[in-house]
């Protein structure tokens, strides 16, 4: 255990935790915005996969990660339109629709990968950006200021999302259509218009999360996200539908994962104990979810389609 508490290992563990938290955070923030407006999307995982494959494939073909990210954003917007059509126009049950989107993303990305790429070919990712001056601060710089662009974007979006939801008219509309859509409608707020925008944002951020993952590891393979989209949804509940709460959950999840990895690497936990330790992040999430569900209520209109005719 002593080896773990050396400065270099602790620094590496925290930096790893931040990297691991990034896809959760990006997808979780998007899903927070969607859920605050009353729209649940269980298909985050599938949309992340679509974003991951798009970013990977475009980068592979063009050697430009920037184009990869832009393409992933476009796919996110397209998936947003699809999901808006399903949930707002067709008013389908959101849980089932989301699962459909997930399965679509899982199957379709595998199909595209097999047909267009086949053998996993590494791509050059975005590379780390060392923030001038800050990255030079001993230890702190290494933990916080030597990451790739999506990491900075994800954490910068936390206050932005908080501000948008709590301090802007649009945020007020989001909260209104997520709690009492009928009342919002009588006040002249376009319920479905507001939800359309939140769905577009949520899907775009899920795609960005997938793109961040693919560009971080520099590869794509079937089911690359390995359940991260579902964890992101859980973290929205964990964070009580607040951006800072989601960030806290994502960080906790990422850092615990990184710590367990380090413990295994150093042989601090082995065998069955290591497998138990690997479950720690999920167990922690369940415990907090139980606590949160008793204290904080979900948006009242979550999963409820809005039909003006009643």
């Amino acid at each position, binding site marked *: 255990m002593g080896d773990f508490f050396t400065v270099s290992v602790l620094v590496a563990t925290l930096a790893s935790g931040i990297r691991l938290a990034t896809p959760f955070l990006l997808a979780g923030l998007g899903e927070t915005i969607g859920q605050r407006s009353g729209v649940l999307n269980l298909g985050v995982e599938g949309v992340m996969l679509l974003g991951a494959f798009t970013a990977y494939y475009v980068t592979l073909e063009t050697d430009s990660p920037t184009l990869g990210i832009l393409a992933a954003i476009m796919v996110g917007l397209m998936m947003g339109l699809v999901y808006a059509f399903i949930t707002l126009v067709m008013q389908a049950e959101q849980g089932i629709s989301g699962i459909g989107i997930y399965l679509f993303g899982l199957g379709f990305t595998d199909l595209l990968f*097999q047909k267009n790429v086949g053998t996993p070919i590494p791509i050059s990712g975005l590379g780390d950006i060392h923030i001038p001056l800050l990255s030079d601060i001993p230890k702190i710089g290494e933990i916080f200021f030597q990451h790739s662009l999506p990491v900075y974007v994800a954490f910068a979006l936390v206050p932005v999302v908080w501000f948008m939801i709590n301090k802007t008219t649009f945020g007020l509309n989001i909260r209104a259509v997520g709690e009492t859509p009928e009342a919002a409608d009588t006040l002249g707020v376009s319920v479905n218009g507001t939800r359309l925008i939140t769905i577009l944002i949520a899907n775009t951020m899920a795609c960005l999360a997938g793109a961040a993952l693919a560009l971080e590891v520099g590869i794509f393979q079937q089911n690359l996200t390995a359940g991260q989209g579902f964890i992101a949804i859980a973290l929205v509940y964990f964070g009580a539908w607040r951006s800072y709460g989601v960030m806290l959950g994502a960080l906790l999840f990422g850092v615990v994962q990184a710590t367990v990895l380090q413990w295994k690497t150093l042989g601090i936990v082995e065998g069955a104990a290591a497998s138990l330790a690997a479950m720690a992040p999920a167990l922690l999430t369940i415990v907090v979810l139980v606590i949160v569900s008793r204290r904080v209520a979900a948006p009242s209109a979550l999963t409820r389609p809005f039909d003006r005719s009643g």
Partner: protein
Amino acid sequence: MKASKTRAIASAAAAFALVTTACGSDDAADEPAAEPPVETEAAADEPAAEPAAEPAAEPAAEPMKIGIVAPSAENDLAWSQSMFDSVNRVGEGRDIEVAISGGLFVVEDAVAALRGYAEDGFDLVIAHGTQFGGPLQEIADDFPEVAFALGTSTDFFGKDNIFAYSVDAGQGGYVNGVMAAQLTASNVIGVVGPVPAGDAKLYIDGFVAGAEAQNPDAEVNVNYIDSFGDVQLASEAAKAHVANGADVLTGTAQMVVGATGVAAEEGIPWFGTQSNQTDLGADIVVSSQVYHWEIVLEQMLDKITAGTLGGEAFVISFENMGLEMEYNDGFGLDASVRESADATVAGISEGTIEVPAGE
């Protein structure tokens, strides 16, 4: 209200249609249900129907049909590809027809594919994953006329229509370990594994033994990430090794593509297994232990032709040429290290070097 219900049902149906289309993700050739030739049964019936007119020549002209069910993509540069490449090599000398269902990491999906191949009259149905062993026992009972193969496994469950196949993966692991111990300057070597079972454990145990035999001062840190598919965890595990001073890395299973990315980024030598992994890093891959399953596949096909559908276990190793070390010329391995590797392979084959068989 009615209208909204109708819309809901219509949209759900549309979503499922979309999903169904998407999930048919592989080739037509990959789909057991879509495989056109169901003629095997008809062909089997034919001699009985017209024994005098068509003597025994026609059935022999039929290619043997092999169906493979694998948990990851057939071109994963690891586990599944090792079987795919091997079957292709078998096809160079035999008339065979091959169908593959890759990417079936969900066991229930794999079970459906295994049954599909059996129902379609395939001569040999390969369940390429230890995790398929449980359901395979039931499937084998339902199709006593079909030969199945399960790997890696040393147990054919007492069934006379299941062949078991496995690999002495510790042998190549040992050779890689011997080389790794000579390449490390920090005396710290990192290993990324999936779960401590099957050929992954054999490989890693062999690697550790080889490294320690070559260089007793070498510290080999093993990290089983408890996942065969989590690429990001594999990547972070490799970074954790690097943070702890590792300057040589290895790993096994399909998620290692995450770890090889880190090795490439850091310029750290990588030792591969299962398939030739040079494509994952032309500058950093030193060598790969490559599985030649065709050695046991040929034996299985011979036995099937002779009427034996199972009840036997096979192992590939250096001795029977089922394992081979392939080296990456682009790495520039020192000649003395290469010589020590060749000597180790010879020693293992001759039995003068003993590789731990795992627990």
